[in-house]
């Protein structure tokens, strides 16, 4: 076979009559760091010979000294050097015009970026590891146009990623992650340092190959492989964290002034005395300076037949909320074995162990709401409570609000979660022929989770009232309760595909990929046990040979449905004359989730590209290095939708008659996946010696059959809503990315870049059905802030729905609201059915990122920023009033009084305020996400320590925001309509972190 290749290549070369004596010329091809470049091609036209560099970059070629050797490698500039009899060292420089050489990972293969017709954002490992955060998705915030990342800084939280807008209201909205070929939902188990590339597939042309799982976008993650001589890489950093922004609350004096005014009707003499014994700063009482550290060590390298990569990482964080801790330990081993010239076997394996001690985020809300008059503890050590006696806070008396003591809440929280994720895979690549490759890949994921939550009910009961004594604890109540959870599953994925790649007649470059895939998301087994009155010492909860049935108050033993997918896929990529590009893909998916006759769906796509800069009319235009236009259409599916099996409702017991059974739901037999159709186009360019690069994309994405809950008519007797395909959701937008890189001289280079994306989301139409309104954004005090019902057509998803605030009534200081007819009334005059209106969405219409940096000698410096526009955020913690809680300092000063009637601050009140635009604020913000300053010690490469870089990092050092709360970048439960996304309530503040670290190579 090799001979065939040689002769084939030789034929392509100019036939040259060989005059001199040929000999074996030996040498090594290395990169600028001295690392060998495996696979580099060495060709000598003079000698009519070619050779490949081996895994260390070594090569041998039969040539004459003096023959010109042309050495080339994808991603490097080619060089031509004369052969020498002595062992040669040939250094290749990384290619400057990256787009021409860059390779992007696409589904079931890779593609040179220039030949790709689809919209893919690639983020390299340096970009991901630069920002010192736990989850890689947080690090890409602002770095990929069209990808909106919302983050929470709560330890271990998962960022929400929305790619080109949200197209579904009830279905799953998370993108699919594909980690080294394994489809998965979450990457919290992946050590960011192990990632070599993070690519976001954004348009239908690239996503259709993922069929029913493509609609929310796909994120492809590739982990590292060994290369060159053995290298030990060590990275350590440590950082401190504190809230980026806090809210100034009223102090004791301000609270007294505000509350006395609010209670003036019932307590004309004033409810609270002016001199109070305490003035508590509750946020301060529940928080601490957070800290985190990460240590990684990896060993990697390659020999002729083996590439290896081992890594061990540990991440530990002490959250800012007292007592919250999070730790993750990861281990990874990626190996690649060259079994023969034609067969390569790659294996990867990773273990991650996560241990989390979470604390309830409602403590932030309680700290916000609890009065500063209440002490953390009284002098006798008992927890402070909002009791008042003779106008002064005391251990006895009447309660003046319903807020718990957040310090006691944290002290009595005892919860621990531990999970272990094992992921592993085997991949076989077999070059059957030079142009035909067979790939078989198996991946598996095993997850196991356990959790306990211990509640000391007696201690909580005592802490709620200092006058209580343990002897009086009601005997029919549990002294404590213990909940334990176990959860595990095994998922696997097997794909087999053939890739055929051949150039016909020099101008027809054809690549065809076709394959099959089976995917099983195994039964998720969950066990939940509720127990009461267990031993206070956790060591003795699970004694040997002891039957605890008597303490069990609840037991759930659940097995969630197994889900299977069987798929066929094919892709055709064609390049004509290196200029005209066509890509067609099709995937046929069968899903076990749907009724037998609704199981199979076909998802086609087509993409076109034209590299104009290779046309004669542009190829000589000096400033233009690259200009490519692209266009694509495709159809995608979202199978994360409600179950469509008609179910029996059983366990309806009638005394004496046993268990009853009925059907009290109805299922639309047509229910299946949501279908997204997308038309998109764009262009890429590089000009001015590729110093200015950019791309522009525009898309029109339409979810043609969005699932919403249809409400059966009341007389059907069925109250459970029926999910059905009744809506259409449109996402239209554009994305711009620009970057300027320049090198002033050998010592100084710099870059400036940015991206901007705009998306318009809208529920465009509804079938003639009555929707079961989805009401969301509940504050837990009877007030809701969001809705999706028949009136929502024309609005974006995640729209806020509430009364419009109309200012302060100058006659009495009350808050006024607009009625539908435009008149202003107090809240008692409002009609819920008529006067509420849509007032904007929690989804941003735009987001943007900026990056700039420079390298000067051994110093590197970079700044990344991110911002969003057009979104609203509801100040839920401020609005969640029941009466008697603390208010912000801004509310407690300068409010309306009979002598200050023009104030825009309402008169103090303890009414539960209706949900209104008074609490709805702009979520627009711009934040510097990361500043990095690094210094590379001037060490010679052949030292024992070959590389050492020290750096300092500032994460989220600055923000400009209009929102008066902690953070406009709210993730919360990630539920667009029914949940609390967009409402700052029980939310973790954004953090500012300062990090110092070092990176060493041996």
């Amino acid at each position, binding site marked *: 076979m090799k001979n065939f290749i040689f002769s084939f290549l030789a034929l392509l070369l100019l036939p040259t009559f060989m005059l001199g004596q040929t000999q074996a010329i030996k040498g090594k091809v290395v990169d600028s760091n001295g690392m060998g470049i495996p696979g580099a091609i060495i060709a000598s036209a003079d000698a009519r010979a070619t050779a490949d560099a081996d895994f260390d970059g070594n090569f041998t070629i039969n040539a004459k000294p003096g023959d010109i050797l042309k050495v080339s490698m994808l991603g490097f500039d080619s060089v031509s050097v004369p052969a020498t009899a002595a062992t040669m060292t040939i250094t290749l420089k990384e290619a400057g015009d990256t787009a021409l050489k860059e390779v992007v990972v696409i589904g079931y293969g890779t593609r040179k970026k220039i030949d790709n017709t689809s919209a893919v954002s690639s983020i390299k490992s340096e970009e991901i590891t630069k920002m010192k955060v736990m989850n890689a998705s947080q690090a890409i915030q602002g770095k990929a146009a069209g990808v909106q990342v919302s983050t929470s800084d709560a330890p271990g939280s998962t960022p929400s990623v929305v790619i080109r807008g949200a197209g579904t209201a009830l279905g799953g909205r998370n993108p699919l992650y594909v980690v080294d070929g394994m489809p998965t939902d979450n990457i919290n188990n992946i050590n960011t340092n192990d990632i070599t590339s993070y690519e976001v597939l954004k348009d239908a042309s690239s996503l259709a190959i993922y069929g029913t799982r493509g609609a929310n976008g796909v994120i492809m993650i590739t982990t590292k492989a060994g290369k060159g001589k053995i290298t030990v890489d060590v990275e350590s950093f440590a950082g401190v964290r504190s809230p980026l922004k806090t809210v100034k609350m009223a102090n004791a004096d301000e609270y007294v002034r505000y509350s006395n005014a609010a209670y003036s009707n019932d307590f004309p003499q004033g409810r609270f005395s002016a001199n109070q014994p305490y003035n508590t700063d509750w946020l301060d009482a529940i928080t601490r300076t957070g800290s985190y550290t990460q240590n990684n060590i990896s060993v990697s390298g390659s020999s002729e037949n083996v590439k290896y990569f081992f890594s061990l990482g540990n991440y530990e964080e002490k959250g800012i909320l007292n007592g919250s801790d999070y730790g993750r330990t990861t281990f990874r081993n990626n190996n690649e074995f060259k079994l*023969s010239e034609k067969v390569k076997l790659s294996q990867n394996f990773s273990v991650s162990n996560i241990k989390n001690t979470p604390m309830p985020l409602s403590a932030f809300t309680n700290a916000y709401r609890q009065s500063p008059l209440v002490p953390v503890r009284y002098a006798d050590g008992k927890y402070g409570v909002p009791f008042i006696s003779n106008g002064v806070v005391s251990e006895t008396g009447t309660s003046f609000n319903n807020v718990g003591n957040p310090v006691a809440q944290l002290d009595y929280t005892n919860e621990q979660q531990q999970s272990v994720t094992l992921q592993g895979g085997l991949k*076989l690549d*077999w070059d059957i022929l030079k142009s035909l490759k*067979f790939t*078989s890949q198996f991946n598996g994921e095993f997850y196991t989770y356990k959790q306990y939550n211990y509640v000391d009910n007696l201690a909580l009961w005592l802490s709620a009232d200092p006058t209580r004594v343990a002897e009086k604890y009601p005997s029919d109540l549990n002294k404590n309760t213990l909940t334990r959870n176990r959860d595990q599953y095994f998922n696997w994925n097997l794909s*087999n595909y053939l890739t055929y790649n051949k150039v016909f007649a020099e101008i027809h470059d054809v690549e065809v990929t076709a394959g*099959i*895939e*089976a995917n099983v998301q195994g*039964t998720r087994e969950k066990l939940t046990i509720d127990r009461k009155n267990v031993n206070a010492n956790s060591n003795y909860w699970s004694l040997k040979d002891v039957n605890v049935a008597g303490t069990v108050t609840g037991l759930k033993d*659940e*097995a*969630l*449905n*197994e*889900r*299977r997918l*069987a*798929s*066929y896929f094919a892709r055709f990529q064609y390049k004509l004359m290196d200029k005209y590009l066509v890509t067609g893909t099709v995937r046929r998916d*069968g*899903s*076990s989730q749907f009724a*037998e006759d609704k*199981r199979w769906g076909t998802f086609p796509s087509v993409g076109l590209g034209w590299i104009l800069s290779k046309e004669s009319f542009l190829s000589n235009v000096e400033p233009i290095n690259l200009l490519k236009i692209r266009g694509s259409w495709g159809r995608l599916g979202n199978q994360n939708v409600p*179950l469509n*099996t*008609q*179910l*029996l*409702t*059983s366990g*309806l*017991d*009638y*005394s*004496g*008659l*046993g*268990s*009853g*059974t*009925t*059907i*009290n739901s*109805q*299922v*639309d*037999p*047509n229910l299946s996946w949501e279908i997204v159709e997308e038309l998109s186009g764009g262009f890429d360019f590089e000009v001015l010696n590729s110093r200015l690069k950019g791309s522009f994309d525009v898309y029109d994405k339409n979810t043609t059959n969005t699932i919403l809950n249809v409400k059966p*008519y*009341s*007389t*059907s*007797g*069925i*109250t459970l809503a*029926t999910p*059905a395909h009744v809506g259409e959701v449109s996402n239209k937008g554009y994305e711009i990315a620009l970057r300027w890189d320049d090198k002033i001289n050998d010592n100084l280079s710099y870059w400036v870049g940015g991206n901007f994306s705009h998306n318009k989301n809208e529920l465009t139409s509804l079938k003639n059905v*009555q929707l079961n309104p989805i009401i969301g954004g509940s504050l837990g005090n009877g007030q809701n802030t969001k809705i999706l019902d028949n009136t929502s057509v024309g609005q974006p998803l995640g729209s806020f729905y509430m009364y419009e605030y109309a200012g302060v009534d100058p006659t009495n200081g009350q808050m006024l609201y607009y009625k539908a007819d435009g008149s202003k009334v107090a809240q008692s005059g409002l009609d819920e059915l008529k006067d509420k209106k849509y007032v904007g969405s929690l989804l941003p219409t735009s987001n943007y990122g900026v990056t700039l940096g420079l390298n000067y000698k051994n110093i590197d410096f970079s700044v990344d920023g991110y911002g969003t526009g057009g979104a609203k955020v509801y100040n839920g913690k401020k609005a969640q009033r029941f009466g008697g809680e603390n208010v912000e300092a801004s509310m407690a000063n300068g409010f309306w009084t009979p002598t200050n009637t023009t104030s825009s601050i309402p008169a103090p009140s303890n009414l539960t305020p209706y949900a209104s635009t008074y609490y709805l604020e702009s979520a627009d913000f711009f934040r510097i996400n990361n500043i990095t300053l690094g210094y590379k010690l001037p060490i010679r490469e052949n030292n024992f320590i070959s590389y050492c870089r020290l750096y300092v990092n500032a994460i989220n050092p600055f923000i400009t925001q209009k929102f008066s709360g902690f953070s406009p970048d709210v993730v919360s439960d990630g539920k667009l309509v029914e949940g609390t996304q967009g409402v700052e309530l029980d939310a973790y503040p954004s953090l500012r972190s300062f990090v110092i670290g070092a990176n060493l190579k041996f």
Partner: protein
Amino acid sequence: MKRIYISMFVLSGLLLSGCSNDFLDVEPTEAIPADPNLVNSDEGAKGFVTAIYNQFLGWEMSSFGWNAVSSIISDDADKGSDPGDAGGDKDIVDALTYNASTPSFQSTWNANYAGINRCNQALAMFPKLDQATPSLKARLVGETKFMRAFMYFTLVKGYGGVPIIDHLATVPISEEDRKMQLTRKSVAEVYAFIEQDLNDAIEALPLKSEYTGADVVRASKGAAYALLAKVNLYQKNWQKVIDNCDKVTGYSLVSDYSLQYKKEGEFGPESIFEINGVGSTSSPGFGIGNYTVSQAPRGAGGWGWGFNTPTEGLANAYEAGDVRKDATIIFRGSVLYDGREVPSTVANPRYNYKAYSSSFYNQEFTDTNLRYLRYAEVILMKAEALNELGETAAAIPLVNQIRHRAGLGDTPFTSQTDIRKAIYKERRLEFAFEHDRWFDIVRTGQAEAAMAADGKTFIVGKHELWPIPTSFLREANGLSEQNPGGY
């Protein structure tokens, strides 16, 4: 080596192409699919009917809202509780100032249609259960139709003509089924439907005496005749009332009136149809959710919410010596039959004794039963029909039967008009707090005067019927109209 790869590839190809549909057949594990094969047995068939009985234990079907629209609304009961606690809408129902959005009318509508759905699910399922014993299935059909008729009777008494849902609608809904669900039928059509169901039930059901053990709670032939007689009564088909009452056999009045409202008196010789509660300290239990607690004494020394309290007018309506008074009303400051004291500090002067449970007095789920059809009612229905047909002399002994059991002497009246009033009064006292009074005063035309005596304004032409819930009219979108009177 090569062979292995090739066979691997071919094998995995086969896995997907040849058997891919088998591969995709995954048995559900998280919920039971509505596959008739899974319930194709006697027990499976019974389960669908048990679910209908179970519907009568529902909070919306039989508890707080039902108390509002069948009891608090009438002259027998006040809202009760503290003045500041409206119980959602109990104050405006009590004052007859409710409207079409008042929740209790909505919840009663929903609960009965939810029950009717359970009936229709059962009737649709039975033909698919070929492994169930045919005779059993026939009886279950009878029970189902009895309960469907019972629920339509509640609806027609309260709302007037309502949509008749006699089968399961298609999904997505067909135009025909949409009209079925959204179009109100006439009162006569609803009564005709009820009578058809009851006649079917009579054919299929056994006598109460033929039921043994736990099955005693099930609907029987006697229950179907008694309900049919009551349906005739509401339509003033006097002769049919008499005929059907005569077919209710095998029952007798119990000597101790109060015993019927205690655990040991349930399903006694007088009981024709009652809803069975079994007390429980865990949740959910097998009783009517919060039926007892919502009506139990409130405030200092009490243990409940204190709603649906007997009016002074009711308390004063009893003649001296009527044992039914102390069996019906808990008086503040009294001692209950089990020795439990109701201190004089509780919030209201009177409470509903018939809702009381001795063993589970403060639990959400108690052993309190709802007595919907008793033999006493058969006697009074027959008396009323005889009297209306001019056979007053034949009616009087029946009235006296009821009076004697109550510890009273013979009725002093003899004229048709007086006996009519006497029967109405016996009905009031005999069935007080058994969810009958409101419908009875509307049926008999006493409502305006009775409510005036209670200090409330009954608007003739309006209050005879409850408002049709606004939410339904919105769904109907013109296919149905609101009841008259300006709701």
